[in-house]
């Protein structure tokens, strides 16, 4: 009598015997599709990845440790370098945390400005994705078209904050346009430059146009669909298990967005839809991001209409000292939930700053998702997760 177990065992034996030895392929740390210095040690059998082990830390800059000897204002200048394609968005949760710790009430106009710039950062981050993702799949032109459009967004950010990537624009108690924006002196009160709202509205109109262009160039392209539909499916439950957030989670059918679930800034006053898709494959992750660009444009338009006039800065003491306590502050960044856990022992510097960076959490699913994929799909999946190595290594 042969029992099922015996059959199974013999089959296993055969399959073990039939296995060809795997080739170990080091993808990275210098490789075109690793977005920096990620290294993947992949065992491949022909074109199939049997096992993969991500190696990170090539870009570790020790921001958490550095923060323990920096004042809050100085940390603000550091944190926008974590995820450098959406610098502004990194500052917001940190500064909100500090404000919460100190109990500072932020003027409404400042909140709106933070909201506008966050959304602009989101658009610019997603435009980078729109450019790099088709490139990973081999399409070169969307890169230029998207980056060209991102330039308009970056110009807007620079116009307000003075920095294209690293605005360092948030201050405890509000926002502060760079002094010396020109030969300004401290006596003048600062605000946004004239015509900014008009130019922003124009840029949002451009966004709709470029979204349609990308739609035609990429979304509807059957080759893109062949490469992405059904590839790298992350079911919603798996996504939650691995702590995925942001578009990656929303593409898996979980319409979870902090802007709706836990509104911060003035997101409860604007009207927008949470972009989500049910399948959880690469195509959905792509589509969700494209849709988020449109939604962000919608939010920015509403914000321009609703923004009140008033001061940008609340009254705060000259020397910032946070009382003893701890706070966790989070925000929906372009890549997902971004949080800071700040512990203060009282004083000018935090006792400990823990950064929950998005890409690190999103990347943790790589070994699971890449197992058994083809090498080209490996690239497609990695690209679709949209991570930035600075965000991973901190």
């Amino acid at each position, binding site marked *: 009598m042969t029992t099922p177990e015996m059959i199974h065992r013999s089959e296993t034996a*055969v399959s073990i015997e*039939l*296995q060809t030895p795997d080739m170990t392929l080091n993808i990275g740390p210098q490789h075109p599709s690793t977005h920096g210095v990620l290294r993947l040690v992949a065992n491949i059998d022909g074109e199939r990845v049997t096992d993969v082990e991500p190696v990170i830390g090539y870009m570790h800059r020790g921001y958490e440790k550095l923060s323990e000897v920096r004042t809050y204002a100085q940390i603000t200048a550091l944190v926008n370098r974590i995820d450098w394609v959406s610098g502004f968005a990194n500052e917001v949760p940190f500064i909100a945390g500090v404000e919460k710790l100190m109990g500072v009430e932020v003027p409404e106009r400042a909140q709106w400005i933070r909201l506008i710039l966050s959304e602009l950062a989101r658009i610019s981050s997603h435009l980078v994705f729109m450019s790099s993702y088709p490139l990973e799949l081999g399409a070169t032109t969307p890169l230029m078209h998207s980056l060209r459009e991102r330039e308009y967004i970056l110009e807007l950010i620079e116009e307000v904050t003075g920095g294209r990537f690293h605005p360092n624009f948030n201050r405890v108690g509000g926002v502060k346009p760079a002094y010396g924006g020109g030969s300004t002196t401290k006596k003048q009160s600062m605000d946004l430059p004239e015509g900014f709202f008009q130019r922003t509205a124009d840029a949002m109109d451009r966004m709709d146009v470029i979204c349609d262009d990308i739609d035609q160039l990429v979304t509807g392209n059957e080759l893109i669909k062949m490469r992405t539909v059904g590839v790298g499916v992350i079911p919603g439950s798996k996504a939650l298990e691995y702590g995925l957030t942001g578009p990656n989670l929303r593409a898996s059918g979980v319409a979870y967005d902090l802007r709706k679930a836990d509104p911060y800034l003035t997101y409860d006053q604007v009207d927008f839809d949470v972009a989500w898709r049910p399948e959880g494959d690469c195509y959905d992750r792509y589509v969700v991001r494209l849709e988020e660009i449109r939604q962000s444009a919608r939010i920015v338009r509403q914000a321009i209409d609703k923004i009140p006039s008033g001061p940008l800065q609340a009254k705060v003491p000259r020397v910032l000292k946070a009382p003893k306590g701890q706070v966790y502050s989070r925000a929906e960044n372009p890549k997902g939930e971004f949080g800071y856990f700040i512990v203060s022992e009282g004083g000018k510097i935090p006792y400990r700053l823990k950064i929950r960076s998005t890409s690190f959490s999103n990347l943790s699913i790589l070994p699971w998702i890449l197992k058994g994929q083809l090498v080209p799909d490996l690239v497609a999946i990695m690209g679709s997760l949209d991570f930035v190595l600075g965000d991973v290594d901190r």
Partner: protein
Amino acid sequence: MTVSIADWFKETANWVFILLAIPTLLGAWRTVTSNNIVRSVLYLVVSLGGAAAMFLSLGAAFVGWTVVLVYIGAVIILFLIGIMITRAPLGMKAELSHASNVRMPAALLSLSMFVLVAWGLIDAFSNTAIEPFEPTPTSDIANLIFSRFVVPFEVVSIVLLAALIGGIALARRDDGGGA
């Protein structure tokens, strides 16, 4: 019609022949003796290319180009793919041939084979010249294949089909127990 040795060397075509025969035989020699597997196969390309060129010089252009297309374009590529998938090592590898206790009898056997057949050939034909000939018209070959030789043609096609099916059957990996 015979041709003397002296006349033989006066003919340009024979110089061309010598030029072709040398790489052909050298390539064949290196194919069977080289210690690097990929190079061995690449020498086979040289040898077969020489053979193809000989066909061209005999006016059998269709056969010549078929050799190039099928042998060099497909068969050799298959060899190379096979070698590379089986992890061809770079550089020399000595264990490609048997030890000399196998090689010596084999050389003897081959040599005696060559001597025997060559002796028979020279005995039979000595210096009989090939009559002047026209290049073979390809259309004639085509017509003949599909009329006179249609039965062998069909047989070959069946063999190819069988090979195709066999190849697929061999190369298929069982999905049930796969890794």
